[in-house]
């Protein structure tokens, strides 16, 4: 009690320990597991990352033809880094900067994307199966 009393009084004349974030810039430690960045050139759309992702924050939309899309949802990601480790082509890097909050307008409609990806994936699988079947029958 007495000690805290004295400490309290002393603290009045000490500099507070507060970081003045956001007025003062904050630099995360190296190796902080922040945003996932994707390099389009390196990616082969092998889908390993999507499958390794625990929370399903990566969806790959492979439309018919060559239009492919790699979608990452910052508000679904748990920043575990598993996708980065699983990517065989080094197309993914985990930055040390954390994602900033987003507002209603900036948000992806994730349910829609999930559904679409599911549908596309199904179609893709079916095509794959069909192709394999064709090969076998040949």
């Amino acid at each position, binding site marked *: *009690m007495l*000690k*805290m009393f004295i400490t*309290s009084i002393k603290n009045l004349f000490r500099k507070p*320990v507060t970081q003045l974030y956001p007025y003062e810039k904050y630099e*995360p*430690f190296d*190796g*902080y*597991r922040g945003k996932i960045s994707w390099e389009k050139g390196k990616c082969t759309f092998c889908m390993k990352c999507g499958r*390794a992702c*625990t929370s399903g924050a990566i969806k790959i939309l492979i439309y018919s033809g060559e239009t492919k899309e790699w979608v990452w949802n910052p508000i679904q990601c*748990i*920043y*575990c*880094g*598993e996708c980065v*480790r699983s990517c065989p082509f080094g197309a993914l890097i985990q930055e040390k900067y954390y994602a900033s909050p987003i507002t209603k307008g900036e948000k992806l409609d994730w349910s829609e994307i999930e559904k679409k990806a599911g549908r596309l994936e199904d179609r893709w699988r079916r095509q794959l199966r069909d192709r394999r079947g064709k090969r076998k029958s040949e």
Partner: protein
Amino acid sequence: MKKIKVNQEICTTIPMGSQHVALPEPVKLVFDTENEVVKRVSFDVSYVHRGIEKSLTTMYDFKKAPYVVGRICGICAIAHSIACTVALERSIGIDGEVPDRVRAVRMIGLELDRLQSHFLINGHLAEVCGYENIFMHLWRCREFILDTADMLFGNRVQYDVVCVGGVNRDIDEKTGTRISEALEEIEESIGFMEEVFTRDKTLVKRLEGLGVVSKDKAFEYGLVGPSARASGVKTDCRIEDDWGMYRDFGLEIITMTEGDALARCLVRVLECFESVRMIREALDSTSPGEEIQLRVRDNPKKDAVCRNEAPRGELFYYIRGTGKKIPGRVKIRTPTFANIPILPHVMIGVRYNDVPPLLMSFDPCLSCTGR
């Protein structure tokens, strides 16, 4: 249990939860009080049930399990991850091959977690006692620990460092030395915490003799962790089911005999010293550069259990391997689950203003209880 008749007429029902400032989690406690003395308590802990055990047997393959079970609870996430991983490794049959470096890193993670958890709860306890300053100080000190974890594992809360067959990242030399420095600072703040909980008159007055659990009662209700150790039950899963190197390092089990709220706090304080020692030993015992991940080829196939000492006590994982990617059954028994049944018994006859400290002294966090 002391049976006290509740006079419905003059009884005041004080709800506490599911949303309440003193509770970070949704849990409903309803106290029937007379003159602010608690006469009857009812609990409802299942607000947080998300179906994690079920999802592990339907949605996620076993390699994702450590990440998922980490989200059972953010306070001792790594304890869950480790227990799950060890159980999985045992189920696969590779637990013997896990390298010492992996064990050491896991131990560091777990002990850091224990440190922050103990600071957290003791600080929060002070807060609910109305001692804001101690809360602020302890949480300020806790930031050192979180910084250390941030440095080591890349995140403050969910370390996500454990994976089946190893760990995700190693601790390099440079970080290792920085940690040794940080540990000194941490030790100093533990000293501060010890002084607070032994010397501070008002705090001690609030906590002393509050919610006494005798040794027999502790046995009878199967208390675990610091709550059991504060009543003199010598139990610690780190010794009893040693997946790391605790026995080699000579971990000391800290017990007290008073069994009151203060003792529970003090046990935690003293454990912090032990944890710091364990981290030091683990850092010294192995050096970076060893292999940190085994290649896991098999799927879990056996029944396996793991008992791990989470900050709040025994954490029990049972996994039934079926040879498939997804286990057939996952059963988790969590420490708070074991510590809850005694709560109504110690709370009856206590004044309502002593209820939050009493509750917090058992360190209940229900996010794993409900899962």
